[in-house]
């Protein structure tokens, strides 16, 4: 029994083993720059924005849905908030609340169409992603400068030399992991993703659960937009454009099931960090960007393959075959 638990622990957390392996691989190639505290600090920092998009996608995937619009929600909420904040002189902390709120509203729009009207999530979020993308252009084409320091702090400021964004990322990872494991909402989210009809028959308002998943995803995307803004010091109109597939990749590499009901937020964080390590490692090797992109694809595939075998291993352990 104990060895079974140990094996399970190992396969359940395999992403961290892969992560360490890839890190050491680049460390061997570029020991002086890669194996430093500064580099780890840097990778954690630049992963924080993508991390929130991965969290958003993970929540949606767990509920058995897709969200193609999270990147655009991040961009749209960041831009709207930036314009309002600068034009009306809104205090920075209210801007932070506002960006999360707008993200949540965008998510609610998705959630209404998918959860209540029961349209296909792929098609709905395809539509809304295009809509939010262009709405951002309606609001403003170009950058918004002169944002209050408080508003830029989450994405740009440091505390004792460490970027605030890293604390926010890790804090939210723990918070979300707790909510998913320990609350009725989290439990329902997994059940809806696993078998929505069965869950409905147990008296759970599944429409509401799906709706709330999109709202939470939207809010997390809003936080990502906030961090992106702080990272750059300005809000740009193409902020977080085209990030959605990397968000999918991060979640899936972290073992989140595309069909719903299975996955963990901490492992999704592992997937995000793995992507960050791969990007930093390949960039530091200064190879042709086209090859860098190709290798990124290959490494993502390898990670997904390893993860797939992890799932098979896990099932075999659970069935007592190993």
């Amino acid at each position, binding site marked *: 029994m104990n060895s079974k638990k140990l094996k399970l622990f190992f396969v359940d957390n395999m992403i961290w083993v892969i992560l360490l392996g890839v890190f050491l691989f680049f460390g061997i190639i570029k020991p002086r720059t890669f194996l430093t505290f500064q580099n780890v600090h840097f990778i954690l920092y630049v992963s924080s924005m993508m991390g929130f998009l991965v969290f958003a996608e993970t929540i949606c995937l767990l509920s058995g849905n897709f969200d193609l619009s999270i990147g655009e929600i991040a961009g749209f909420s960041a831009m709207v908030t930036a314009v309002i904040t600068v034009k009306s002189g809104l205090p920075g902390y209210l801007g932070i609340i506002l960006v999360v709120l707008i993200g949540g509203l965008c998510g609610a729009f998705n959630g209404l169409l998918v959860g209540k009207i029961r349209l296909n999530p792929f098609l709905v979020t395809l539509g809304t992603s295009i809509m939010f993308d262009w709405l951002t252009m309606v609001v403003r084409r170009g950058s918004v400068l002169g944002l209050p320091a408080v508003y830029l702090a989450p994405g740009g400021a440091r505390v004792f030399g460490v970027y605030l964004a890293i604390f926010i990322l890790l804090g939210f990872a723990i918070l979300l992991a707790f909510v998913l*494991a*320990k*609350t*009725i909402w989290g*439990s329902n989210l*997994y*059940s809806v*993703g*696993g*078998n929505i*009809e*069965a*869950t*409905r*028959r*147990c*008296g*759970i*308002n599944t429409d509401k659960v799906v709706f709330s998943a999109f709202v939470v995803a939207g809010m997390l995307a809003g936080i990502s937009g906030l961090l992106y803004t702080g990272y750059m010091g300005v809000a740009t109109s193409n902020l977080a454009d085209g990030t959605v597939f990397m968000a999918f990749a991060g979640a899936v590499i972290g073992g989140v099931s595309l069909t719903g*009901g*299975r996955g963990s937020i901490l492992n999704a964080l592992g997937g995000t960090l793995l992507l960050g390590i791969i990007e930093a490692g390949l960039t530091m090797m200064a190879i042709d960007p086209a090859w860098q992109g190709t290798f990124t694809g290959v490494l993502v595939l390898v990670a997904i393959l390893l993860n797939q075998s992890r799932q098979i291993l896990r*099932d075999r352990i*659970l*069935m007592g075959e190993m």
Partner: protein
Amino acid sequence: MEIPLIKMEDIHKWFDRTYALRGVNFEIYKGEVVGLIGSNGAGKSTLIKILSGVFPPSKGRIFYHDEEIEIKTPKDAIDLGIETVHQDYSLVGERNVAQNIFLGRELVRSAGFIKVLDTQKMEEVASQKVRELGLNISSPTQEVRFLSGGERQGIAIARAMLFKATLVILDEPTTALSVKGCRQVLDFISQLKKNDIACIFIDHNIGRIFPLADRFVVMSHGQIIENVLREDTSVEEIEDLLVSC
């Protein structure tokens, strides 16, 4: 005269242009066991899905203790004390035994100012219930997708038993089961009866269920063609009815 626990009046159900039920009148009393019988497509499953809130009737009225009610969602049915074990068990394969048993009725405890799941308590209760049912499930944390059909059936039944029900509906509860599993289900039905809980079950094996039911309702082509007390009929008579329709 005794008031029926549930009374369904002139229930119709159509899907697009197909008629599934055409004017069904059905009632069940407290503690009564009704065997619902009929060939495939007769409308049995449609009838009980209306009762358990999977979908509403297209037309007709439902009374609970003589009071007209609407069962729009599974939650409405559960709130009335109607527990259903569906043919496909309605379990979430990715979740474990305890999580499935408590799905929709999770136990919580206070941790500071928020309520968190009382996982330990749920697992204890689930273990106990599973043991009572004589199911061979090693741990309440086992994922349901690894279990056999009989074990899943047992979990669905455990769920129905755990909460205070007034009516338990079993849709083909013995189809996937071994002989031993069947006996457990039949035991369960007689336990319900002892506790004054009404029960509707659908089963094809008339010989096996005959001794349990108080009354048989036979359906054909979306209508009830026979409604007879056990003492007034026999296995042969019902089988003849089924063949003739």
